[in-house]
């Protein structure tokens, strides 16, 4: 199995699909859509293959040998560039227990989003080409182990998103798209700065014994690789590692989105078409937390250990603030967007715990939030397609008109509230158990539990306003779900229930990696230590 | 008179080159200019092959000549296409009348 470059395949398959689409005639809508569906479908199959062949015992994180499906070869090599010496950049892919669930998530969500894109009406060719490009960018971010490559994928993903919101979006699409773009680009700039700083501070020893600067993430996690005078080197007494950490953190926090960098999210969500909202909430938000786990944590373990309180605090603010904002919304989609803010807070809280329960909970919460929010946005999309309004007070009594739809909504809402038996509960519980275990953030954790209360508040209120009560006669013509909508909702429902009942499906996948990470964070501060803070 | 050697071929090639340049300089018709270019290319080829034989370069000279022929073919095709296009636009192929380059 190791001979097949599965990761490259799953990453670049959409690009191939995109090229094929570009060659298709413009008006051949059916073929374009089916091609996209086929490509994303194959991605799901590849994801399952990867899952099937994934070795649960390997940890990953900082050790290349325990990464899986590794593909590594020299990609760019420019010798003797003035004072920089040899520039050497690897094409380095690999997954561990942190990224594997997210790859599965991306594959599934993209597939579902393709189905959700079925009712795109204008310039279909461009839409699906960009959609597939976005797909590659997202996959790439999760599989790249070279910082440079990671950054490239990060940026690849940005551009199609801009156009997808800006062209196919709602009434204020330009505003939302430009806001999204500038915000994320700002984050990217921070990441780029820190990346270059890291590059110039650490070297990698090649096979012939020579040392070159490196973008290799795993090498950057090794304190021994840092040069004595590098600007971000722990050996340099006047280093800027705290600032680099913060730069990276802000860069990723914008994506999460963390308070106070979250305001692009409601706008982007409200204006984006359904499928793009699904992807945005289902996958893109995870990149922020993934980036922190993959880059901030292991590359700056000593600073991570110092700053967990702040991460937890911001997690708490996200939870409470997002929930309270959601409570006040009158637009269904905006409400879901704010609930995303709230739920991503749980991820941050879990990450801040720095123990297995919390970090597992965080990664699981990323996965679960991905599936649940995807469901929620699909639900919003379905009602918007039919009624052309999203105002919470415009509806009422839909439960009788659309009983099956209401059934799915109930499942999704209760999953979002964290009802046991559905996946959201497990991850939230793990997050809380992990976070409560840490003395310094115990109080924050207790306050954060209010989030589950507020969550129940806004979700049930929404349920009541839209579905319960007397049917507004205006909506007596609304149809229940179509086959396509079943096809979107049923797989997600199955995932949500399966993970709620038997979470080991995912937990086993990530467990050894999370343990490796936790051990690494426990031990490496010593090697990174002795630094003026 | 000495035996036929490198110099003889070089002289032929030099004459051919001069004639080619002369053609380019003097003729107004674009097709004629093209023919001049072909002459120049041929003269260069003679040089390559002559040096291949007398200059101890083995087959590499012939190889280059072969590539030149291929390029010449490509160039001729493009050039004639351009000439046709010019003709369509200006109704003439006289290069001095096509002096849009000046503006």
């Amino acid at each position, binding site marked *: 199995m190791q001979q097949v470059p599965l990761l490259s395949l799953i990453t670049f398959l959409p690009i191939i699909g995109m090229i094929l689409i570009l060659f298709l005639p413009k008006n051949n809508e059916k073929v374009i859509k089916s091609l996209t569906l086929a490509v994303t479908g194959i991605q799901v199959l590849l994801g399952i293959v990867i899952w099937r062949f994934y070795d649960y015992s390997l940890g990953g994180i900082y050790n290349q040998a325990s990464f899986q499906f590794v593909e590594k070869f020299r990609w760019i090599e420019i010798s003797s560039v003035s004072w920089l010496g040899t520039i050497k950049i690897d094409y380095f892919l690999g997954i561990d227990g942190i990224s594997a669930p997210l790859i599965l998530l991306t594959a599934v969500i993209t597939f579902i989003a393709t189905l959700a894109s079925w009712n795109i009406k204008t310039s279909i060719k461009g839409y699906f080409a960009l959609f597939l490009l976005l797909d590659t960018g997202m996959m790439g971010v999760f599989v790249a182990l070279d910082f440079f490559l990671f950054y490239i994928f990060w940026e690849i993903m940005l551009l199609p998103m801009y156009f997808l919101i800006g062209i196919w979006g709602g009434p204020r699409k330009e505003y939302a798209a430009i806001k999204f773009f500038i915000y994320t680009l700002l984050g990217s700039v921070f990441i780029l700065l820190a990346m270059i700083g890291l590059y110039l501070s650490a070297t990698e020893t090649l096979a012939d014994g020579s040392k070159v600067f490196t973008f290799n993430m795993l090498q950057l996690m090794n304190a021994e690789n840092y040069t004595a005078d590098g600007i971000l080197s722990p050996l340099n007494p006047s280093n800027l590692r705290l600032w680099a950490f913060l730069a990276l953190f802000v860069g990723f926090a914008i994506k999460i989105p963390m308070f106070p960098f979250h305001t692009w999210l409601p706008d982007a969500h409200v204006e984006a078409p359904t499928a793009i909202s699904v992807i945005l909430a289902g996958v893109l938000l995870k990149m922020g937390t993934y980036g922190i786990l993959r880059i901030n944590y292991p590359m700056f373990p000593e600073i991570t250990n110092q700053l967990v309180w702040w991460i937890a605090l911001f997690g708490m603010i996200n939870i409470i603030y997002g929930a309270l904002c959601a409570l006040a919304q009158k637009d269904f989609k905006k409400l879901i967007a704010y609930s995303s803010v709230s739920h991503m807070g749980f991820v941050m809280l879990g990450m801040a715990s720095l123990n297995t329960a919390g970090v597992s909970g965080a990664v699981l919460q990323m996965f679960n939030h991905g599936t649940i929010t995807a469901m929620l946005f699909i639900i919003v999309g379905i009602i918007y397609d039919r009624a052309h309004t999203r105002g919470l007070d415009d509806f009422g009594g839909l439960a009788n008109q659309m009983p099956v739809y209401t059934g799915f909504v109930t499942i999704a809402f209760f999953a979002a509230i964290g009802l046991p038996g559905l996946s959201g509960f497990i991850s939230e519980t793990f997050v809380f158990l992990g976070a409560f275990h840490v003395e310094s953030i115990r109080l924050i954790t207790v306050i954060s539990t209010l989030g589950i209360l507020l969550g129940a508040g806004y979700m049930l209120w929404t349920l009541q306003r839209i579905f319960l009560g007397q049917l507004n006669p205006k909506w007596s013509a609304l149809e229940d779900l179509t086959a396509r909508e079943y096809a979107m909702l049923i797989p997600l429902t199955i995932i949500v229930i399966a993970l709620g009942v038997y979470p080991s499906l995912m937990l086993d996948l990530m467990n050894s990696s999370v343990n490796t990470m936790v051990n690494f964070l426990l031990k490496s501060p010593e090697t990174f230590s002795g630094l003026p803070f | 008179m000495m035996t*036929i*050697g490198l110099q003889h*071929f*070089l*002289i*032929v090639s*030099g*004459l*051919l*080159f*001069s*004639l080619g*340049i*002369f*053609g380019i*300089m*003097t*003729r*107004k*018709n674009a*097709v*004629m200019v*093209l*023919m001049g270019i*072909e*002459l120049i290319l*041929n003269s260069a*080829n*003679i040089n390559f*092959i*002559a040096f*291949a*034989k*007398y*200059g*101890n370069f*083995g*087959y*590499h000279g*012939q*190889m280059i*000549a*072969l590539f030149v*022929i*291929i390029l*010449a*073919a*490509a*160039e*001729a095709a*493009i050039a*004639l*296409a351009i000439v*046709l*296009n010019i*003709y*369509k636009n200006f109704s003439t*192929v*006289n290069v*001095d009348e096509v002096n849009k380059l000046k503006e």
Partner: protein
Amino acid sequence: MNIYDLIFYLFAAITVFSAFAVVSSKNIIYSAYSLMLTFFGVAGLYVLLGADFLAIVQLIVYVGGILILILFGVMLTNKVNGMPIHTEVTNLIPASITIGLFAGIILAFFVNTNWKSTQTEFPNTTIVALGKLLMNEYILIFELLGVLLLIALIGAASIARKK
């Protein structure tokens, strides 16, 4: 004077005189046919230099391909209605002077340089050796040229089609 020399002079004469005819004839059709003679002559010289394959290529590509193209070009760009097609001449005097000087200079170079001449004897046919070279050392160039020809083909077609 052996037969080899004789043949050389014959081909050299054909080449040079027909080339002169190409540039001096006023009728473009004559020029074209003279060009064909030039190509023949050059091909003969190739044979004398032991490049049999190139001689064949010269004939096939130049005579069979390029010349026909040029003739097409002539036909398409001149209103052929039985009248001989004359072309105008410019810059005759300055060109003659310049070319005279130029030819003098390069011929002087050629004659006066003390060429280190070592004669290589090629086998009867060079096709095998050239073929091997093409498929080994020159494979990249070979393929690039293939692409180039394709591009030229498409480009020529698209330029010529353009309105």
